[in-house]
């Protein structure tokens, strides 16, 4: 063990030595769930995602085929993306594509682990239909398919559900990349994808 490690830990123990014994309780009186269900839940997610200037489409299975048909150009997709989610022209990523290859495609189509209604966020966990992180980062256009049953109401519900995703990497995305660094003017599209399209798939429940 390094000398620095022992010294830092020693200093911490010394700093805490005059504290009363016992742990400090964590106050957990905040909401763990939000009262959002059915159509209201889906509406809230769509409205909040649009607030970040993401494009939101709501489709059923037939509508999905039409929505994908519109996509022009070469799209990279994770190697396990379902057949019915494929755009007309695609390249499957088996991790063979270099960063420059990913930089040269027109977009990417993925699924997601879940979506959060209250914050308009999609979360990718490198699970099925999502691929490695670089494929949703370098292309300039990200199309993300969100099945309605993947939408949860609140941040605590999302965090609880994502426990089983670890240790895979997680990326929370709320709209396209953005900056407010110049005079606090919000500009959408900096280094990450400049456009984000969210396709909400499935019958909206009552």
């Amino acid at each position, binding site marked *: 063990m390094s000398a620095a490690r022992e010294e830092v830990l020693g200093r911490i123990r010394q700093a805490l030595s005059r*504290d009363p014994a016992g742990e*400090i309780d964590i106050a957990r*009186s905040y909401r763990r769930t939000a009262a959002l269900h059915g159509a209201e839940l889906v509406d809230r997610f769509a409205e909040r995602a649009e607030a970040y200037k993401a494009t939101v489409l709501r489709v059923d299975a037939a509508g999905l085929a039409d929505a994908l048909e519109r996509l022009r150009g070469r799209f990279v997709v994770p190697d396990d993306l379902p057949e019915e989610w494929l755009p007309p022209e695609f390249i499957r990523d088996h991790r063979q594509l270099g960063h420059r290859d990913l*930089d040269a495609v027109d977009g990417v189509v993925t699924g997601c682990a879940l979506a959060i209604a209250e914050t308009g966020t999609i979360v990718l966990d490198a699970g099925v239909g999502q691929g490695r992180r670089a494929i949703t980062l370098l292309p300039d256009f990200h199309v993300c398919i969100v099945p309605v049953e993947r939408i949860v109401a609140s941040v605590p519900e999302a965090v609880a559900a994502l426990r089983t995703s670890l*240790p895979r990497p997680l990326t929370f995305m709320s709209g396209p990349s953005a900056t407010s660094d110049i005079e*606090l003017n919000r500009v959408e599209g*900096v280094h*990450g994808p400049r456009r984000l399209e969210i396709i909400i798939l499935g019958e909206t429940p009552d």
Partner: protein
Amino acid sequence: MASAAERHTFPELAKRAVADTQLRRNIGNATQTIRAKRAAVVAEVPDWEDLREAGRSLKEHTLRSLDRYLVQLEEAVTKAGGQVHWARDGAEASRIVIEIAERHSVKEVIKVKSITTEEIKLNEALEAAGIRPFETDLAELIIQLGDDVSSHILVPAIHRNRAEIRELFMRKLGLTELSDRPSDLTAAARTYLREKFLTVPMAVSGANFGICDTGTICVVESEGNGRMCLTLPQVLVSVMGVEKLVPTWEDMEVFLQLLPRSSTGERMNPYNSFWTGVMPGDGPQEFHLVLLDNRRTDVLADRTGRQTLNCIRCSACLNICPVYSRTGGHAYHSEYQGPIGAILTPQLHGMESAASLPYASSLCGACYEVCPVKINIPEVLVHLRTRAVAQSGFTLEKLAMGAAIRMFDNPRLLETAQKIARVAQRPFASDGYITGGIGPVRQWTKARDLPAVPSQSFRDWWRTRR
């Protein structure tokens, strides 16, 4: 001529900043905009006060068992394929980063915005070792290209307007045509940095949270430059203060609500990245975590000052502060500005170099009210003032305060003093205020209005009424 130390005191720097009307307008507009955004998104959270209390108690709970939690994090990161290093101070942390770069024969590194690496002057150390650091956050790029210093912990280039940034980009990025529209300036930065993201083999980041039970590290950001640095290079080094821990993954449900709403005034910032050690086939295949003390353990030892370590660097206290929103950040002469800077800087860099900072406040308490982890900044300010006075030894101020106590204690002495003051203030008083003066009076009036002693005191007036 004032000495260098005096030139860097808050009153001296603030005086210059307040005289700059353009700067005052930029900072005033910016803080007002972001305050309104924060207020709107906080108001839509019905359990905001419960979340603040959860945030505070989580941080205090973790600090109370910090040794145990650090060891737990170290084990979890190591088990997930990461390497953990410990640094007693900034120089040691910089050495660790440089050694990693040298082992890989790296001559350039890309950087995610990190105030911690500013605190330890990592860029200077890298340059001295022949390694060129590229800041990739837009504001940090503006600061780096302009050889400037940050004036806000969240939006470091808040003091620069679009015309200044356009001029800087044209000169430094070799562009012949560029408009001053923020979208065009942003696009210029994207083009400039894209090649760096694709080619530089090593990145350095800070960390917003270290999750002890899983060994997961979190960086929150907006632009995607963070994701680029955390995903594309082969080697990633994250420098994290030892206080940035949360016990469990589930605790992120609290901070992922508190931080974005307090910070950028958004329901969620555009990107949050979480990674756990090394993931085969996805992202950097070598990960180093540097745990940094750099006097944080001294802060921990001070039971009043300790709450400063709760800070999650949201910057809500800067935006609400009546002092910051007039002086801007440079007056604090630190990488940590505003109310949190006024308490953090003296504790991290030593009272001797920042004794004026605990006085850079009107103690109005607005910072405490907006703080998402309930740091009682006014309480710590007063505590640090006491420490500053105790350390200062004999001063003219102490002598004057002692004399004032005797004077206010004795009605006849007070009356005599008022008579003398009425005569003595004549050369300096106008419209009921004293401007200028000599000695300690001049020190006071340099940055403040001092009402003149009126021609008739209340006691004199009362006597004539009876």
